[in-house]
């Protein structure tokens, strides 16, 4: 029942969203589903100091608060960091009617268990995490309920949510209406783990501040998006509810084998031709040593580490997200959002920017194969991806009758 409009990006490589951009086309009432769990609203509103705070019951593998990161700080040796897929974090926000720059929770692999004392209008977007409701209105459910992803959800106060290991992909971004209000450091709420700036990884018992008006905002947006009857029932009786439309996940085609488009890097030519061949032909395996700073690759099957004898010794130079470094051990490293800003290893490839989102879904044990494209092809891909992203963003904003501009400053 997924809608029709599938923008065709196929020819040019990573088909990022596979997004169904129909969001504005059908009426919410007609498509709504509901999940009735209780007939009457329990003494609903949470009171007291922690009323508008999420409680992390279990942390999951790596759960952090992220937004669009800290740009323009490279001259202080601070890379942008932020959500591993900033565009997915934008969409997660837009799904719940937030400004796209609001902070979200980034979930990596097996996810957290989170309790909310208040009504939420939220969305989990990105990987195919299994999201289950374990308690409702503060009472355990006999059978945990699986909640749908990639769309907004109304979750009543007293709910306990668990993100289980993803069936596909690796990271999801969870947005809450009104946004998270953890402290701003250098203009961002992102945890930059490599630099030790902003928050840290979340731990059990951590409390995360939501917008103090979260309940009002959530109810209002749920009523708007779900329409009269369903919205009333959900918000008045405390039922989970969601619209039937959704946008497509960000799982790259072919996952867990990622076909990563690259252009030649600055030191490509210095690499021995036989090694160039091996770098491109081999299927690389993502090592468990990978993190938000970089994806370390290891040889797999017939593969082997590369001979780097022909590569030059370098004085430190700028490196960037998507740079593929080749250290002396001969195993490539793809730099991720929390990369160092300068590095001394030869840079043999650069990942096309249109493929950055794909990298954020690469888990340890996944496979990566590079394929060379020209600079012109890379330009075309990034333009096509950006057009698609903007179309989806506009459709989502239209859905909630909103209009956010890139220049708008929210803080």
């Amino acid at each position, binding site marked *: 029942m997924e809608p029709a409009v599938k923008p065709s990006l196929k020819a040019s490589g990573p088909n990022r969203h596979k997004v169904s951009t129909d969001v504005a086309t059908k009426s919410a009432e007609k498509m709504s589903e509901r999940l009735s769990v209780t007939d009457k609203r329990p003494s609903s509103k949470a009171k007291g100091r922690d009323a508008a705070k999420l409680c992390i019951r279990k942390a999951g593998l790596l759960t952090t608060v992220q937004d669009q990161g800290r740009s323009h700080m490279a001259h*202080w040796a601070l890379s942008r960091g932020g959500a591993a897929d900033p565009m997915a974090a934008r969409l997660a926000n837009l799904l719940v009617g937030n400004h796209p720059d609001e902070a979200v929770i980034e979930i990596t692999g097996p996810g957290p268990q989170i309790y909310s004392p208040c009504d939420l209008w939220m969305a989990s977007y990105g990987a195919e995490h299994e999201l289950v409701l374990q308690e409702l209105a503060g009472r355990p459910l006999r059978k945990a309920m699986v909640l749908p992803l990639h769309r907004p959800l109304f979750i009543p106060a007293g709910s306990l949510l668990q993100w289980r290991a993803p069936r596909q992909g690796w990271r999801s971004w969870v947005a809450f209406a009104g946004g998270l209000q953890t402290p701003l450091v250098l203009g961002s709420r992102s945890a930059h783990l490599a*630099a030790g700036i902003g928050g840290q990884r979340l731990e059990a018992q951590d409390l995360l501040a939501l917008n103090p008006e979260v309940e009002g905002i959530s109810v209002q947006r749920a009523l708007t998006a779900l329409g009269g009857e369903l919205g009333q029932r959900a918000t008045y009786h405390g039922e989970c509810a969601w619209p039937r439309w959704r946008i497509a996940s960000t799982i790259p085609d072919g996952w867990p084998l990622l076909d990563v488009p690259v252009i030649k890097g600055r030191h490509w030519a210095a690499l021995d031709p036989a090694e160039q061949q091996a770098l491109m032909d081999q299927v690389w395996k993502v090592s468990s040593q990978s993190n938000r700073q970089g994806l370390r690759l290891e040889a797999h099957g017939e593969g082997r580490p590369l001979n780097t004898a022909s590569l030059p010794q370098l*004085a*430190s*130079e700028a490196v960037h997200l998507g740079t593929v470094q080749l250290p002396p051990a001969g195993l490539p490293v793809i730099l991720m959002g929390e990369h160092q800003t*300068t590095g001394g290893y030869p840079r043999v490839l650069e990942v096309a920017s249109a493929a950055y989102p794909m990298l954020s879904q690469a888990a340890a044990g996944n496979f990566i194969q590079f394929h060379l494209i020209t*600079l012109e092809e890379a*330009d075309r891909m990034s333009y096509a991806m950006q057009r698609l992203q903007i179309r989806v963003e506009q459709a989502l904003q239209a859905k909630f009758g909103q209009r956010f501009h890139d220049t708008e400053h929210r803080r």
Partner: protein
Amino acid sequence: MVDWHDHPKANQAARSLAALLRQEPQAFCDEVVAGVRTLAMRLPETRGLQNPNQAASWREQAQAWLSEKAKEALCWPAAEGRLQVLPACYEPPLAPDLVFVAERCGLSVSDVIRHHLESELVAEVIGFMPGFAYLGGLHPALKLPRRDSPRHKVPEGSIAIAGNQSAIYPSSTPGGWHLIGSCPLRLFRPLCDPPALIQEGDRIRFERISLEAFEQQWSQR
């Protein structure tokens, strides 16, 4: 990207061009990073693409701008960096490699300290981690390759040397340089403006302090 290779003024040119680009932002440049002898520019984010040829046209403009300025920059007079005198404590508990460095350089420990104090250092590159500055201009008598195997954990504040550079580690991290002392100041303060104590182009000199003074300043940071 520009590479001035082994030109003696390469780093100075890189820093002056980077400063110019930050002062007079250009539409085709989102961010600029000076390396030891290179300058790298990054195009604006894909979000700003107005048409399919936008990236190519930014690249052309950037290259035209760079090829014109790269030569010029070598002739610009060196900007006089701000001089900062930073406290340094060379007492044994804070300087695990001092004796090793002295032996390898064929010097006495006090000579190593004296040469380090006499070095007129310049913050050539800001990189590696927030607050970290590669300080060029180390006294030639102290030139040593890095450690054979890096330490898993270098204590915060450590003053280190390797090659013709010195540095201070802003926070605890793995590192392969030789540790000859410690600085009690905080090098990166996210809540201050500017957050980094050392800026690109700063001239740095160290001033020796006692262990007591170190401990006192450390406790006040």
